[in-house]
């Protein structure tokens, strides 16, 4: 069993195909997505650099405002936060409940509104940096005087990928030289 030539070939081909598929899917996302820039909000200053990737969170510039408080009150004692929510970026910027935006909304980010009315699309974002530049880049990111932004690729279905990080308007790769 599993010793035929066909099985052997499949055993070797399957991992290669899966990994190629991962590359393909991510490449497709990057190519078909819209790019937006957001300010970086520190995740945890002490572990902004974890291993050899930077961890951070993003300031979307919108808060989960009072309508959510209303929903909590109306629901009575039953706890219903965090809520599913999304931020619509095109045509106009707005935040709303649920992961299904209106038909008019052509670009959106899916996430949740916490009980503190903070919107987050992901717990944390990551950006991998080369080992020998890691400490230098960490200092640049921690320094509050620097303008730190993340360039996000957002697909039509709300899938987000980190494309780049800008520090004072320049790509982070420029700071690695």
């Amino acid at each position, binding site marked *: 069993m599993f010793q035929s030539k066909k*099985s052997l070939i499949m055993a070797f081909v399957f991992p290669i195909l*899966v*990994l*190629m598929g*991962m*590359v393909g899917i991510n490449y497709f996302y990057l190519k078909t997505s819209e790019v937006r820039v957001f300010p970086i909000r520190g995740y945890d200053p002490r572990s902004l650099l974890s291993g050899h990737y930077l961890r951070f969170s993003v300031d979307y510039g919108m808060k989960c405002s009072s309508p959510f408080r209303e929903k909590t009150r109306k629901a009575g004692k039953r706890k219903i936060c965090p809520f599913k929510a999304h931020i619509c970026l095109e045509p106009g910027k707005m935040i709303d409940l649920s992961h299904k935006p209106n038909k008019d909304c052509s670009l959106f980010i899916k996430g949740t509104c916490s009980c503190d009315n903070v919107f987050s699309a992901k717990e944390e974002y*990551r950006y*991998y940096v080369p*080992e020998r530049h890691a400490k230098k880049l960490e200092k640049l990111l921690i320094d509050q005087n620097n303008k730190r932004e993340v360039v996000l690729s957002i697909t039509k279905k709300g899938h987000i990928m980190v494309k780049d990080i800008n520090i004072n308007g320049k790509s982070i790769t420029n700071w690695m030289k």
Partner: protein
Amino acid sequence: MSLKKRVNKWLAKGIITPDQATAIINEEKSRFSLTGKLRGAHGFLTVASFSIGLGVISLVAANWAVISADIKLFIYFLLMSCLSVLALKLKNKSELWFSALLILFMSLCLGGIGLIAQIYNLKGDSWQALLLWSVITSGLMLVSHKKITSHIWLGGFSVSLFLWSLSVGDLIALTGSCIFYLLFFLLYLLIQKKNIFLNQREALKPWTLVVGFYALLFFGFKFIAFSNHTIQEYSAGLNSIYLFFLLLFLSFMVVAPIALYRLSVLIYLWLIGLLFSSFAWISVLTELSYFKNIDLGSYFIFIYFLLFMFLSLLFRIPQITFPEFIKRNQSIFEKWTVVMGLINLASFNIIGKSAFFDENLIHITLSVFFVGLIFLFLCVNAYAIYYSSYKRIQKILLNALLSLYVLFFITVWDSLNDNSLINLIFSLLILLCSGFFAVSLKKESLFKLAIVALILRLYFFYVEVFQDLIHTGISLIVIGLFIVFLFVLFQKNKEKIMQWTKKLE
């Protein structure tokens, strides 16, 4: 199942004659003479594959910015394709090279997952990467004839489960751990009944026990964490009572063996105590334990290892009678002792950095108490070695091993602990000693484990010294290729080397 047990089974069924059984066992024994060991030197190819795979993963982890992402991916997939074609071509010509290439291919699958995550800045936990690796390499595990491949796969898969359970909420983790254990167990029963996947089945048995043991310990840990939290919430004074009973329990575990010869019921009590101490052990390792709070974790870790070492020694004392269930699973306990020894080696540095002799009187008192317990238990272990049925050379090696462990433990107190070289020397001596002990026992798997642990220890030393994954990665690849070169050289001059070693014997 060891070869000896299988041979006895075949003999009982009348498949082979007594003469044939003796011939098979003698042939197996001869593999562990120096000449026999050289005949089986192909194990070093496995080690070379491991070293090269680890080196490549280090290079990926270094995120070498000099090369662009597209070129990295191109080189990676080209390498994987070439490896797979080469492995398939060599399958019928040399099972040995096929296995080595298969292990390298599996290692590079993990490297590939890391590479893609880096290039596209993907977020994911370690357990997700390992689980994905397990899924994509499951086919490779099934087509391999070598147990080592199954062990590597089962190890990766089990670790992904453990990491998953640590990342989720308590109730889900507890339920999940129990379900995974049941699935492992049912799978083992199924393939045993159908008599399929024989190589994989042999590896599956110990891992089923490991996952089961983990599920049990996880349950115990959650209970201890809950009770710790409850105790600390209600009264600081209860902490002292809790500590008192824990110390009393440890004292029993250390002192009771002295009377084991006279009171057989103590064996049962002692084994139950071993189970409870396992609960505390896992809570120490997960850094949420009471012990960690008062800096005594490393004492406990060391005593826990000594408990299992003592149990393994008791098995070799003919006068001690054990319950049947324990006797049947003797090899599992002995293997767990080895695992404990390795965990101790790996964790002394991490846990032992806490202050043992600081100015706090309570700490000093507790530290002295623990040191006294450890000293007493070392004497008990040495006594057990003396009365065991091991040969003289094996007793010497065991005593040397025990002494090295003690000295190693002491170095973690001293500022010498910061000296990576001293630490490395002790680790290597312990592993070499273990390797020689394994050869004396004719336990090939134990010998290979010692060699793999040695390589891993060297790897971590490189990372500490070079402080640079790139140089570490390159060094490991070079070492792996050098081992391959030596092996090829050996194969070409095999007869001459065999004749020379026979003269030595």
